C-alpha cells in the first residue's frame, strides 16, 4: 500500500498537520507505527481508515480496533461474538459450532472455554483480547490496531499475534509503545512518526537506526 502526498489539517485549525507525506506499508505484512505521545499516530490511523477525510483516495477496506470499548458487563462472550461476527457474517444466531469453520485455531482455543461466560466476569486483559480476536476475524485488507497490547499479559499478547499470523494475507498497522511487540515478529516494517514526517525501516535498518536516534534507542531499550 503506497500512500502518496498525504496532506491533512485539523478541521478547526488552519495549520497543516501532514504536509505532502508519502510512505509505503508492507503489504501484506506487519507494520508498526511508533512515535512520541501526541505525534499524531491515531490521527494517521483515522486517516487511513477513512474516519478523517483527507486528500487520499482510499482504495482499501479497513477495520479499526480501538484500545478498548465499553461493553455491557452482563452480556456473555457469545453475545459479543454475535455483535462482531454476526454483523460481519450477517448471521442472526452465531453458535460455537458454526464459528469453528470460520475463525483461526488460536481464537477458537481462546474463545471456547469462555463462550458462555459473562463479559463482566472476565479480567480486563481477557475482555480486551476477546474483542481484539473477534475483530481480527473480520475480513479487511487493512487492519489497524491502536495499542492492542496495552494492559494484556505477554501470554495473551502471543495469542493475539498468533491470530494476526493466521491471517497473513492482510496488512496490519499496529500502533505501539512496546518494543517487545516489534521483537515478536521476524519480518516487519517500522514507521516512525516524528515531527509530522514518517521514516520507514526494515528490521535491520531499524535496529541500526536505534543506535543513533535517541527516541528509537529508548524504544528498543524498552524505556
Amino acid at each position, binding site marked *: 500500500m503506497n500512500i502518496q502526498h498525504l496532506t491533512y489539517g485539523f478541521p478547526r485549525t488552519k495549520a497543516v498537520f501532514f504536509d505532502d507525506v508519502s510512505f509505503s506499508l508492507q503489504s501484506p505484512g506487519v507494520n508498526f507505527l511508533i512515535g512520541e505521545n501526541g505525534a499524531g499516530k*491515531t490521527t494517521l490511523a483515522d486517516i487511513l481508515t477513512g474516519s478523517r477525510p483527507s486528500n487520499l483516495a482510499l482504495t482499501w477496506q479497513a477495520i479499526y480496533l480501538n484500545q478498548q*470499548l465499553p461493553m455491557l458487563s452482563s452480556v456473555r462472550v457469545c453475545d459479543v461474538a454475535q455483535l462482531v461476527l454476526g454483523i460481519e457474517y450477517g448471521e442472526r444466531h452465531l453458535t460455537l459450532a458454526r464459528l469453528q469453520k470460520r475463525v483461526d485455531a488460536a481464537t477458537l482455543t481462546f474463545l471456547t472455554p469462555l463462550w458462555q461466560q459473562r463479559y463482566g466476569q472476565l479480567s480486563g486483559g481477557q475482555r480486551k483480547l476477546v474483542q481484539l480476536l473477534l475483530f481480527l476475524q473480520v475480513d*479487511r485488507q487493512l487492519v489497524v490496531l491502536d495499542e492492542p497490547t496495552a494492559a494484556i499479559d505477554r501470554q495473551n499478547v502471543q495469542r493475539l499475534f498468533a491470530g494476526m499470523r493466521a491471517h497473513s494475507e492482510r496488512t496490519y498497522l499496529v500502533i505501539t509503545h512496546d518494543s517487545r511487540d516489534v521483537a515478536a515478529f521476524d519480518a516487519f516494517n517500522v514507521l516512525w512518526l516524528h515531527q509530522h514526517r514518517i521514516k520507514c525501516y526494515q528490521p535491520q535498518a531499524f535496529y541500526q537506526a536505534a543506535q543513533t536516534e535517541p527516541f528509537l534507542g529508548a524504544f528498543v531499550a524498552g524505556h
Partner: protein
Amino acid sequence: MHKYWMQVFIYTNYFFKVLRDDLGVLVYTIGLPVVFLGLNTSRFIGTPLTTLQFADRVLPFIAWMIFSNVLVAMTSIGQLREHGYLKQYRTLVVNVSVLIVSELLVTVTLLAVTLIIVAAVAAGAFHLAFWQLLWQLGLTLVLVYPPTVGFCLPVLAVAMNTKTLNAVLNVVTLVVMFGSAAINQVMTPSLTNPIINLMSPVYFDLNVFIALTQGQLLRYVGTYLLVLVFWGCVGHWSYRHLVILPKEAA
C-alpha cells in the same frame, strides 16, 4: 440490503439487552409517563372525556414524551461516539446508520408500549374506546416520528463531549417544554400555523392527533408535509455531517 437489516436486527437486540440489563430504568421509562398522566388528570378520572378534551389534557404530555425519548436516543448515540464506538463500528457495519436506526427502533418500541398503557389507562379512566384510541395514538406516533428524528438529529452533527451532550439534552427539552407552555399562555395558534408546527414538536404532535381524530386531515395535510420535508432535509443534512470521532480526538 439483507445484510443491512440483519445488522439492524443484531444491534436492536443488543440495545434491548442493554435496556433489560437495568430493569429499574426500564420500568421507570415506561411507567413514569403513566404516573404523570395520572397526576395531571386526576381531577378528571371517572369523567367521560371526548377525544378533543383528551387531546387538550393528555396529548401535550404524550407529545413531550415522544420528543424527549427521541432526543435521549440521539444523545445516547452521541455518548457511544464519545466512547469511541462509532469510530470502531463504522468500519464494521455496512453503514453507520445501522446504529442510529437500531437505537430508534428500540425507542419507538418503548413508546409504543407506553402508548398501549396510556390508552388502556385513559380508556378506563375517561371512558374512551380503547382500540380506537390506541389506533389514533399509534398512527400519531408513526406520523410524528420521522420529523421528530429530523428535529433531533443535529445533535449528532456537532462535536460535543458527554457533559455538553447532557447539557444540550436538558436545555433543549426544557426550551421545548416551557416554550410550548408559553405559547399556550399567550395565543391560540391555528391547527395549520406553519411556524408553530415547525418549531414546537409538542404542538406538531398535538395537531397531528387533532387532524386525525377531528376529521381535519385534508386541511392539515399541507402543513404536515411542510414539517416532514423541512425536518427531513435537516435530518438528511445532519446525517451527511455526522460526527464520527470523539470530541477529544476531533
